C-alpha cells in the first residue's frame, strides 16, 4: 500500500484551517477531490441522456450488494461495485432488446434489487443498523485503500472521457443517427453503464444512497443553465461539483454547522443551481 501521508499534509497546508489538520478530514478532502470531478463528468452524460433514474437504481442496489457480500463472504467494497456493474449492464441489455420503455425496465430491476437487498439485510438486526451508513454516507471514514481504488477509477474514467466524450455526445443526441453514422453505440452504452455503476457505488460511501443521484444531477443541471456549448457544460459541471464538495466538507466540519457532509455538499450544489438561473433569465430578457 503506497504511503499517502505526503498528499494529506499538502492538503492540510493548502487549506490552513483547524478542521483540516486532522487525518480523517485530509483523507475526506482527497476522496472528494477524486469523486467530485468523476460525478461531474458522468453527470453531464447522465443529464444529457436522461439517465437519472438509472443511477438511482444502481445506488439502491447497494443493499443487495451488501447482502450478496454476506452470502458469499465477500467484502462490501467488492460486492457492491460488482453488483452495480451487473445491474447496469443488465439494464442496458434489456433496454436494447425489449420493446418496453427505458423507465419501465429500470423500474423493474430497481424494485427487484432493492427488495432483495432489504429482504436479506432485514434478516440480521445488527446489519440493518450498519446499513444506515449507506443511506446517509460518511466520507469521513474513507480509508487509504478506498482512496487508491478511487484514484484508479479516476484514471479509467478520464481515459473514457478523452476517448468517448464525442461519441457519447453523438449517442445522447440521437442513437439511430449515431448508429447509422458508424458510432459503435452498443459498445459505448455498455461501457458507460458499467463506469457509471462504479462511480455511483463509490459515491454511495461518501454521499449515501439517498443523495448520490443528486451529486450526479445537480452540478450538471446547473452547468447546463450556465453553458452555451458542450465544452462549457463539461467544465462548469466540474467547477460546480468540486467547489460544492470542498465547501460542503469545510462547512459541515464547523462546530456551528455540525451537519452531515453529503447533505451539505448537495445543498451548496443546489445554491449553484439557483444561481445558474440568473443568466437564463437575463438571456430571456435580452431576447425579448
Amino acid at each position: 500500500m503506497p504511503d499517502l501521508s505526503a498528499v494529506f499534509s499538502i492538503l492540510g497546508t493548502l487549506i490552513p484551517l483547524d478542521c483540516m489538520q486532522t487525518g480523517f478530514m485530509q483523507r475526506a478532502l482527497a476522496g472528494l477531490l477524486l469523486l467530485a470531478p468523476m460525478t461531474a463528468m458522468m453527470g453531464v452524460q447522465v443529464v444529457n441522456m436522461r439517465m437519472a433514474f438509472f443511477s438511482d437504481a444502481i445506488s439502491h442496489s447497494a443493499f443487495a450488494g451488501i447482502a450478496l457480500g454476506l452470502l458469499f463472504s465477500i467484502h462490501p467494497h467488492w460486492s457492491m461495485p460488482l453488483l452495480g456493474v451487473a445491474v447496469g449492464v443488465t439494464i442496458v441489455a434489456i433496454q436494447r432488446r425489449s420493446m418496453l420503455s427505458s423507465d419501465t425496465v429500470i423500474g423493474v430491476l430497481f424494485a427487484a434489487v432493492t427488495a432483495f437487498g432489504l429482504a436479506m439485510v432485514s434478516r440480521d438486526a445488527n446489519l440493518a443498523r450498519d446499513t444506515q451508513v449507506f443511506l446517509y454516507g460518511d466520507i469521513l471514514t474513507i480509508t487509504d485503500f478506498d482512496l487508491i481504488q478511487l484514484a484508479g477509477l479516476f484514471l479509467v474514467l478520464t481515459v473514457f472521457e478523452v476517448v468517448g466524450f464525442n461519441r457519447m455526445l453523438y449517442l445522447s443526441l440521437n442513437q439511430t443517427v449515431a448508429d447509422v453514422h458508424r458510432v459503435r453505440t452498443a459498445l459505448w452504452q455498455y461501457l458507460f453503464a458499467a463506469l457509471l455503476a462504479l462511480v455511483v457505488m463509490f459515491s454511495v460511501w461518501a454521499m449515501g444512497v439517498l443523495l448520490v443521484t443528486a451529486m450526479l444531477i445537480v452540478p450538471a443541471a446547473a452547468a447546463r443553465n450556465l453553458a452555451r456549448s458542450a465544452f462549457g457544460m463539461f467544465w462548469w459541471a466540474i467547477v460546480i461539483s468540486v467547489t460544492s464538495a470542498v465547501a460542503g466538507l469545510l462547512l459541515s466540519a464547523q462546530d456551528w454547522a455540525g451537519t452531515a457532509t453529503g447533505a451539505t455538499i448537495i445543498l451548496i450544489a443546489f445554491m449553484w443551481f439557483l444561481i445558474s438561473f440568473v443568466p437564463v433569465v437575463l438571456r430571456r430578457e435580452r431576447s425579448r
Partner: protein
Amino acid sequence: MCRHDAASTAICFDGLSVTLGGTTVLENITAQIPRGGCTCIVGPNGAGKTTLLMALLGRIPCEGEVRIGVRPDGSKVRIGYVPQMMAFDRGMPVTVLEFLSMGVQRRPLWVGISSSSRRHALELLNMVNAAHLASRRLGALSGGEFQRVMLALALQQQPDLLILDEPAAGVDFRGGQLFCELLENLRGQHGFTQVMVTHDLGLVTNHATHVILLNRRIVAEGSPATTLTPPNLMAAFGAHMGGAGIDQTPCCGCSGSNGEHHEEDGEVRNA
C-alpha cells in the same frame, strides 16, 4: 425477384416483410433502387415508408433480404441519414460547430474544437448554405435550419447512399423548396444515391428519378411518369387521390430543374 446488377442498382429489396407487434407493416416487398438517382418512397400514412427505411438501415427485424451494393474497392457503402424531425433534447448546450465536429474530431470536445475540425465543419455548412449558423446553439435552430445542419452531418460521412425521411416535414413551403434544390445540386456534385421518404407528390414529380409507390405492399415502381398515374394513386391513397396524376399533382413542395413550376403569390401551378 430483384435483379441485382451492381453497376446500376444500389439496393435490392427481395421478398421483404416486416411484422411489428403482430401487425404486418410490410408484405413481400420486392423492389430496387437505381444507383446515383433520387428514389422517392411514396405512400399514405401508415403505408410502411419509414419502416422500409428502418429495414434498409438494419434497425428492425425483417424477413426477406435487403441487398446493398458495395463500393468499387469492395468495402461497405457509406450511409448518411437525415431523420424526420429528429427528436433530441433542445435544451442541450451544443453548438452547430460542436455538432459537426463530434463525429470527426479525435480529441474530446471538452478541450475545444481543433482548427482542422472547425475548417471541415465550416466547409460542410457552406455546402448546405448554412455557414452563418456555425456558432448557434443546436436547440435554437428553426426546423429548416436544423434540417440543413442534419444534411451537413450526413454529408460528413461522404455517403454513397443518402437516406432522408420526410426531410421537408415541418419546414415552410419556401424552406422545403430550397432544401430540395440543395439536395439536387449536391447529388449532382457528389454522385450519391438518394433515397427519400415523402408523401409530397409535388416534390416527387420534380425531383425523383425513380419512385416506389407503397401501401404495405408495392403498388407500383418505376419512373415518376409511369408510377404516379391515377389508377396507381387510387390504389395507394384511395379515391380522393385517384384523380391526381403526374400532370395534376395536388401539392408541390419543390420546384426544381426537372419541373416547370412557377410560383406566384405563394401558389404553385403547373405551367
